[in-house]
C-alpha cells in the first residue's frame, strides 16, 4: 500500500514536472513567437490516422475552423464557406495554405469519420486537414481561438462559427465570425499572410 502510494506520488510529481521540462527545451531549440499556437503540447489524429502536433504544421499559413461531422445546421454552411475561401485563394496562385477543420467532438469524430466527411464534401486534397484531439486538447485550442461550444445532446453541439487565420509562425492574424459572409476581406487577409 505504502509503495503503491509512493509510486503514485512520484507519478504525480513527474507528470507535472515533465511537462515543464519538455516545453522549456523546445523553447531553447528555436525562438518561437510567444503567441504561436505551435506551443500547444496537445497531439491530434488526422483523417489519415497520423498523429501530429501543431508545430508539425510550422511554415504553412493556416485557415482553421471548428466543426463536428454530425452537424446538420451551421456546419455545412461553414464547410461551404471554407471551400469557397479555398477556391478564391487558390485562384490567386496561393498554394501552400493548409485548411484545418478541428473537430469539437473528439469522442465521435474518429479519423475514419473525418475521412468520410472529407470525401462527402470533396475535401480530399492535401490542402485539407481534419483533426481529432482529446477533450482537453480541444478545449485548450478552442480557448486560444475564443471559440465557444457546448454539447447540447449526445449528438449535437452549439458552437461559435469563427474562421481563424494563422501566419507561417502560428500567430493568429485574423478572425471572421458568422456564416455565409465570404467577402474579399478574408481572402485578401489570407493572401497577405501567405505572402509573408
Amino acid at each position, binding site marked *: 500500500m505504502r509503495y503503491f502510494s509512493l509510486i503514485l506520488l512520484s507519478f504525480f510529481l513527474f507528470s507535472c514536472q515533465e511537462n515543464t521540462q519538455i516545453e522549456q527545451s523546445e523553447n531553447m531549440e528555436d525562438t518561437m513567437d510567444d503567441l504561436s499556437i505551435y506551443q500547444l503540447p496537445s497531439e491530434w489524429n488526422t483523417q489519415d490516422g497520423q498523429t501530429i502536433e501543431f508545430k508539425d504544421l510550422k511554415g504553412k499559413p493556416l485557415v482553421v475552423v471548428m466543426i463536428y461531422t454530425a452537424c446538420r*445546421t451551421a456546419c455545412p454552411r461553414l464547410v461551404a464557406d471554407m471551400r469557397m475561401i479555398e477556391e478564391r485563394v487558390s485562384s490567386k496562385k496561393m498554394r501552400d495554405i493548409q485548411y484545418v477543420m478541428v473537430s469539437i467532438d473528439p469522442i465521435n469524430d474518429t479519423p475514419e469519420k473525418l475521412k468520410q466527411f472529407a470525401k462527402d464534401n470533396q475535401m480530399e486534397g492535401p490542402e485539407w486537414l481534419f483533426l481529432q484531439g482529446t477533450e482537453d486538447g480541444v478545449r485548450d485550442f478552442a480557448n486560444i481561438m475564443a471559440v465557444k461550444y457546448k454539447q447540447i*445532446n449526445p449528438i449535437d453541439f452549439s458552437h461559435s462559427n469563427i474562421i481563424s487565420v494563422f501566419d507561417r509562425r502560428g500567430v493568429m492574424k485574423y478572425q471572421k465570425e458568422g456564416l455565409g459572409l465570404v467577402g474579399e476581406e478574408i481572402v485578401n487577409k489570407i493572401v497577405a499572410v501567405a505572402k509573408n
Partner: protein
Amino acid sequence: MRKLILLMAGFFLISNASAQTIQMALIEGGNYTPLYGVGEQSETSVGDFYLDKLPVTYADFQEFVRKHPKWQKSNVTKLFADSRYLSNWENDLKAPANLMDKPITMVSWFAAKAYCECQGKRLPTVDEWEYAAMASTSKRDARSDSLYNVSILRSYEQPKTYMKTVGNSESNYWGVQDMHGMVWEWTQDFNSIILTGESRNNGNTDAGLFCAAGAIGAKDMMNYAAFMRFAMRSSLKANFSLTTLGFRCAKDAGPQNQLTFK
C-alpha cells in the same frame, strides 16, 4: 509485529498526504437545473466531487510559481496569459506581502488550470461550481430562498471584495466558503456559456454566429445573481487576467480518488 508497525506507518503517511483532501469538501452529486439548460432536458446531473473549501490564495500561488518557473510573470507564454497576468507582483517570485491571505486574481484560465493539474486536481465545471454555490449555510439548494438570493446580490454590489481575507465567511452546507461575495471564479468549461444577445460582431443574428443557437435559453430568469455569473463567464477569454477573477480547484470523488498525494 514489525510488519504491523510498517503498515501503521504507511497508513499514517497516507493520512498525512491526504491532508490536502481535508482542505476540500465532498459535494454529494444530484440533479439540478442549470440557468442555461441543455435543450429539452432541463435537469443536469452532477456526480460526487471534491471542491476546495477556499479560493486559492496569493500564498498558494506564490508557492506554485516558485516550483514552476514557466508560470512566473516574466516567463509566462503570452499565448496563455495577457499582460495583466500577476502584474501587481513585486517580482517573479514575490506576491505583494499584504495580499498573502487574499484570493489570487489576475491569473488566466490556462494558469489556473495548470495550478490545479499540478496539485493532482482540476478546475470545477460550470455545473459543479453552480451546484455547490446554490447551497446556503443550511440548505443544499437555497435558490428558492429569497433572502439567500438577496444576500448574494448585495455582495455583488460591494466594491473591492477581492481584498477580503479568505476563510472569514460562513461555510455553506457543504463546508465550502467564499463562493459568493469575494471573487468571480474560473471554471473548466467557461467557454460553454453562449448567451443569446451576446454579439461580438454587431449586425449579425445569433443564428449566424452559433450553431443551434435556438436551443439555448435561460431556464430560471428569477435567478438574477446566476445570470450575472453566466454573463461574466460568457465575456471571458482564456488569457484574460482580471483583478476580480480567481479560482479554486476540484477533483473527482470516485473510489480511486479517495486518497490524495502531493
